[in-house]
């Protein structure tokens, strides 16, 4: 009985929504669940000339994939180094702490100055793509930078936490068993740190989903789920706007849960001993 409760929250929310719009004398602008649903069941249909929901979603997903991958590739090594070496930690921690409060949104103007509205297709010199509808045309460098910025700090902090929580007993065991530093790092420290690294990744990808809306406010943007939310709002198409919110909620949760499940697997093995 107990574990069915979370599932109950969603129908309740729908009911509340339905009551809100059909209630006596209701003058809300909110569309009904049915209207939103009718948008959601036609994912391939073009919406207000910005492309289909699937297209918008794909664009946003690829943007997140690029920004988040960059955050992983940069964040994990920095975290590993900061976790393993006091020297590096001392050196970088002030910088990280100063950078952290600068939200991705605060960096929008800076990213415009740095990257203008250059896209990946321009970056790779593929100018023949300019007048085609192509994913690479939608990948603004500034946007990837902002997504990277949003995702990288939780990953760094999670990795540091992971490396630092390696049990002394395991390090000593490895040492008396004849393992050298590099070997210990690879076979003891990294596996021990994995659960915390995954936790950082989960927070990081969540942050990316929050930031994508801000990132898609960059000038020159005319695609993506974040853009569609803003544009449909401007055109008072609240049904489309809500449909987009529902999609982001579902896919965002899907990603977090996926990473959580991966982390859980390593966590179970580590924590059982305690």
């Amino acid at each position: 009985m107990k574990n069915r409760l979370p599932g109950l929250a969603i129908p309740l929310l729908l009911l509340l929504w339905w009551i809100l719009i059909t209630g006596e004398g209701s003058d809300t602008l909110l569309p009904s669940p049915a209207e939103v649903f009718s948008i959601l069941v036609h994912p391939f249909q073009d919406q207000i000339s910005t492309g289909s929901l699937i297209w918008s979603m794909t664009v946003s997903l690829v943007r997140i994939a690029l920004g988040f991958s960059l955050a992983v590739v940069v964040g994990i090594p920095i975290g590993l180094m900061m976790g393993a070496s006091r020297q590096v930690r001392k050196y970088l921690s002030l910088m990280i702490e100063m950078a952290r409060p600068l939200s991705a949104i605060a960096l929008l103007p800076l990213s415009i100055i740095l990257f203008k509205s250059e896209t990946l297709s321009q970056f790779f010199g593929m100018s023949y793509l300019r007048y085609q509808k192509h994913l690479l045309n939608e990948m603004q460098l500034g946007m990837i930078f902002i997504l990277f910025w949003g995702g990288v700090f939780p990953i760094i902090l999670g990795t540091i936490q992971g490396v630092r929580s390696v049990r002394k007993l395991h390090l000593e065991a490895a040492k008396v068993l004849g393992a050298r530093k590099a070997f210990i790092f690879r076979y003891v420290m990294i596996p021990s740190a994995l659960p915390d690294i995954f936790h950082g990744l989960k927070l990081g990808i969540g942050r990316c989903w929050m930031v994508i809306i801000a990132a898609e406010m960059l000038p020159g943007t005319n695609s993506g789920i974040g853009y569609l939310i803003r544009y449909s709002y401007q055109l008072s198409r609240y049904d489309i706007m809500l449909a987009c919110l529902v999609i982001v909620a579902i896919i965002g949760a899907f990603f977090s849960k996926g990473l959580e499940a991966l982390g859980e697997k390593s966590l179970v093995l580590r924590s059982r001993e305690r």
Partner: protein
Amino acid sequence: MKALSVTGLMKTFKEKSGDVHALGPVSLDVTQGSFLCVLGPTGCGKTTLLRTIAGLEIPDSGSIELMLGADGRQPVVGYVFQQGALFPWMSIHANVEFPLLARGNIDRITRRLRVGAILEMVGLSDFSSSYPHQLSGGMQQRAALARSLVTQPDILLLDEPFSSLDTRTSQDLQENLRNTWKEAATTVVFVTHSIEEAVYLAGEVVVLGHRPGRIVRRQVINLQDPRSRLSQEFTEYLVSLRRTFEELVEEPE
């Protein structure tokens, strides 16, 4: 021939509340192939002595000499911790293989054979793909023992490896260890606070006094194998060592 020679070893820990003189000076020679028990009350520095020999602590003064192996190579040291210290994310097989892999110069087939043989010896063949948390405490300790034996150490150091187990399991493992020692012909230094365990296992017992740990007595245990805990001689050793212990407690620090 000596396997290990400790001379004038001293260790002080720096704590916030001041320095704690934990050990020494201690001087000790261990004959090759012998089974030495270091016996002492809790907090007498016996673990510190063992950790220093293993290179986990750096002594303030004194020296530790490990004799080179038969062909002049560096001696291999095995160490078993109080709580197994198995790696929980690795299977038993991977745990036991770890020291072979870490040394790097042993090929895959040899590794597999040696891990298989050692698991057979400690009776864990059927559990090689299990994870530590799936095994009982006694089995975990046997796996830890296998992991430190797989490198065929010249000297094996054990820090109260059976103290967290129930009496029955502990006695089984003691018998197991004594047999293993006879087969493997390695030198063993075994730290314990249990007099009975020491008398059962050791060829010689060294009693360490209260902090700072110093050797207060050396006692050769001359008992026939298989040793019986109920024999007259066993009890005599037990009582005699117990007396030393009582004197230690009465003695003002």
